[in-house]
């Protein structure tokens, strides 16, 4: 079983001064699996996300991707290894068109017809066909989020990390994002860090609950919702 | 001792000038993230003020008092008329202040001519320091520069305005939220920086050739003072000046002066590579 793990963390720890932001976190993701990490604000989700994508170094513990340690890897090498990320704040290239945003998201050589075909396919997937020549800076907030997901997917990643992908979205947009993520799962594993319950419910996947830096419960979302401990520490107060 | 002491004092002469020039530049950069390419020309303005005042029979000390005020006034006018509109565009500021620098240099040359201006040192005697004869003016100059630096340090550390300034350097948004008038802080800090450079110009003038283009040499060096030392702190400026001025003076004894200057700048580039936020990070 362990041989097919895509991403695995072992006993990750991170402190900021006296605050324990990530406390002994061990999670694992298999290929084409969708998992969510939920928790209240300040539960340590974003710190964990930053460690997973290499923006922060853990104090102790390890992160392995396909059995290889990610320690010391440069930012651009993560994407080449097959890990794509979508940050919380939409960060598309505002002065490029939607199409150019997607085109620059592939590194390395590719023939023109291949590139055009992949851009067309992605525009369809993220529902931005009509906007291809618009400057990305002119898109609506939800569209920017989708474009960024599309950009992350252009390099055919094995793993997609999403940080609060539905932050600031309307209910309708949230539902469409959940559908989009379901569609993705045929090609890549997805780890979403979320605050918004309706999105996680719509995804209905295996879920970790973080509280004060530690994973306190994990399981299917339907079970999580019924869990008393989770209700007490998180859902009850949310 | 007889060779080391003059070497040390010569180094101190350059270091003290660079401190004064670098401080203004560092404060402006630390505060506003603005690189003022016309900063060197305030040295020129100081030196020309000295020449003008002396030509009307005024004394060196009167010039040392008036020139910083002239520099600060011109700085204030420039900040209000041009720079305040460019705080969000660092490269645009570089271009605009470079344009200003060209205009100031050429105007000075058109008005005063291309020949070097006459300035007179207030003290022409030498004194004996530990058995070595050394020009008294240089010693006075070093002392004045150190006094001005100490005053600037106390001003930044002890006054209300200094506190406001440090708050803006730490966190501009927070400073705004705390009700600090950042625009006012910028304008005053810019004027003070310009005034300090003009003071440096007066002190420097008797030791150098006073021409309209004299600022450019000090501009490049004082940038390295700021980069090497770390922007936005007095100790950083002192460390940076000691590095740039000290190394250059020492190299001067071994290799031609122009090459020494070039080599110092190369060294500074290497320092930046390994300590991107300077020797004394703010």
């Amino acid at each position, binding site marked *: 079983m362990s041989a097919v793990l895509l991403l695995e963390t072992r006993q990750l720890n991170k402190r900021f001064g006296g605050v324990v932001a990530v406390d002994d976190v061990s999670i694992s993701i298999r290929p084409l699996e969708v998992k969510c990490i939920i928790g209240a604000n300040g539960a340590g989700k974003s710190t964990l996300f930053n460690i997973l994508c290499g923006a922060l170094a853990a104090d102790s513990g390890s992160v392995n991707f396909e059995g290889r340690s990610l320690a010391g890897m440069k930012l651009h090498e993560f994407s080449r290894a097959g890990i794509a990320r979508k940050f919380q704040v939409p960060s598309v290239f505002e002065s490029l068109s939607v199409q150019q945003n997607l085109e620059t998201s592939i590194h390395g050589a590719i023939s023109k017809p291949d590139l055009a075909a992949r851009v067309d396919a992605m525009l369809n997937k993220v529902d931005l066909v009509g906007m291809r020549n618009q400057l990305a800076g002119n898109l609506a907030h939800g569209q920017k989020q989708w474009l960024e997901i599309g950009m992350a997917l252009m390099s055919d990643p094995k793993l997609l990390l999403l940080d609060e992908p539905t932050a600031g979205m309307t209910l309708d947009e949230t539902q469409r994002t959940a559908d989009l993520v379901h569609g993705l799962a045929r090609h890549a594993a997805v780890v979403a860090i979320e605050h918004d319950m309706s999105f996680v419910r719509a995804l209905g996947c295996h879920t970790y609950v973080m509280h004060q830096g530690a994973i306190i419960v994990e399981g299917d979302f339907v079970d999580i919702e019924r869990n008393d401990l989770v209700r007490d520490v998180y859902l009850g107060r949310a | 001792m007889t060779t080391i002491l003059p070497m040390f004092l010569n180094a101190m002469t350059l270091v003290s000038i660079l401190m004064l020039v670098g401080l203004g530049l560092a404060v402006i950069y630390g505060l506003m993230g603005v690189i003022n390419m016309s900063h060197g020309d305030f040295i020129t303005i100081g030196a020309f003020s000295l020449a003008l005042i002396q030509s009307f029979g005024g004394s060196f000390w009167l010039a040392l008092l008036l020139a910083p005020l002239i520099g600060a006034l011109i700085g204030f006018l420039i900040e209000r008329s041009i720079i305040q509109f460019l705080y969000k565009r660092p490269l645009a500021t*570089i271009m605009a202040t470079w344009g200003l620098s060209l205009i100031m240099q050429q105007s000075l040359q058109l008005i005063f001519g291309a020949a070097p201006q006459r300035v007179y040192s207030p003290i022409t005697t030498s004194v004996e320091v530990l058995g070595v004869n050394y020009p008294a003016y240089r010693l006075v100059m070093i002392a004045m520069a150190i006094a001005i630096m100490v005053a600037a340090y106390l001003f930044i550390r002890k006054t209300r305005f200094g506190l406001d300034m440090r708050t803006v350097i730490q966190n501009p948004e927070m400073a705004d939220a705390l009700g600090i008038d950042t625009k006012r802080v910028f304008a005053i800090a810019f004027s003070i920086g310009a005034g300090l450079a003009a003071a440096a110009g007066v002190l420097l003038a008797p030791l150098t050739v006073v021409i309209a283009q004299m600022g450019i040499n000090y501009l490049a060096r004082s940038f390295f003072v700021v980069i090497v030392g770390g922007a936005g702190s007095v100790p950083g400026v002192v460390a940076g000046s000691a590095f740039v001025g000290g190394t250059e003076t020492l190299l001067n004894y071994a290799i031609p002066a122009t090459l020494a200057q070039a080599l110092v700048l190369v060294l500074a580039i290497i320092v930046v590579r390994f300590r991107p936020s300077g020797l004394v990070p703010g």
Partner: protein
Amino acid sequence: MSQIPSDTGSSTRSRSRVLVSLSLLFLLAMYIAPLYVGVYSASLFRDAMLFGLMALGLDYLWGKTGVLSFGHATFFGAGAYGAAIISTQFGMDPSYGAWLGLLGGILFSCLIAFIVGYFLIFGGVRGSYFTIVTLALGVISVHVVLTFSEYTGGDAGLLGVPPLSFPTVDGFRPLSQLGQYWFVMTTVCAVTCGMWWLCSGRYGALLKSIEDNEQRAQALGHNTSLHLLIVFVGSAVIAALGGALYASSVGVVATDSVNLILSTQAIIFVAIGGRGTLFGPVLATVCVIWLEQEVSSINVQLWPLFMGLLFILAVFVFPDGVLKRAEALFSMIRPVSGPGGRA
């Protein structure tokens, strides 16, 4: 809704098509110019086109990636001095010495750019810091030229740089004045068109993305430091080509092909021509140098004042170049049918 996106796309494309056709027309005029104007004007055009290469190099760097170099004359000068020293100081036969000089000048500049660029770019130096370090580089290079006067000729400069030679029926013959003119024109046209072609597709968008948000570009798997280093070295090579050809065309190299004024003018050329348009800066170089001649003929002292003014105007009045500003004014007058008017 679907109308709007296609509009913005086509107006950008039609704008660049206007610029390109305007440029080609202009270049054609430059080609035939020596048949109608005097020798002096022709040599002025030739030199201006070579300074235009320096502007093109700077535009590749500043226009495409947003990194401003304040010392680009260093690379022009390295090309010029490299070519002059190699072709005059080693007693080589000018028929191949001139070509070796050209090659050597470019390689020399390439080496400087690589070393400086590596230290700065991989050291994480960006933005304003990068600009002032390159300014210092410009100051250094003048010092170096003056210090090593036995090789560089110091203030007097180096004389007698041979023109390029081409094989003819009578063996290798140096180019005539007119031949040099056309050789320079052809080279500048070819390099400019080549750069335009290179930057028109995905590569240009990639560079733009680095300017927009470098971290994001890294996150997408682009080794942005490497890309920036390649652009920096490439921009130096283009400037050095201009410098080396300048040395062999004029026959003399002095400190005015390496000093800060030239670096400064390079920025003006790009700012006026329109950052990132590649053709624009080459055009602007010729226009500005012509303007310089006109102004200096009134009084030599006036030109630096004009340059200072142009800098401030470039910042406040035409941040995207003169053409773009003119176009904006034009579409204000004719809001319905002007390009981009519908969007």
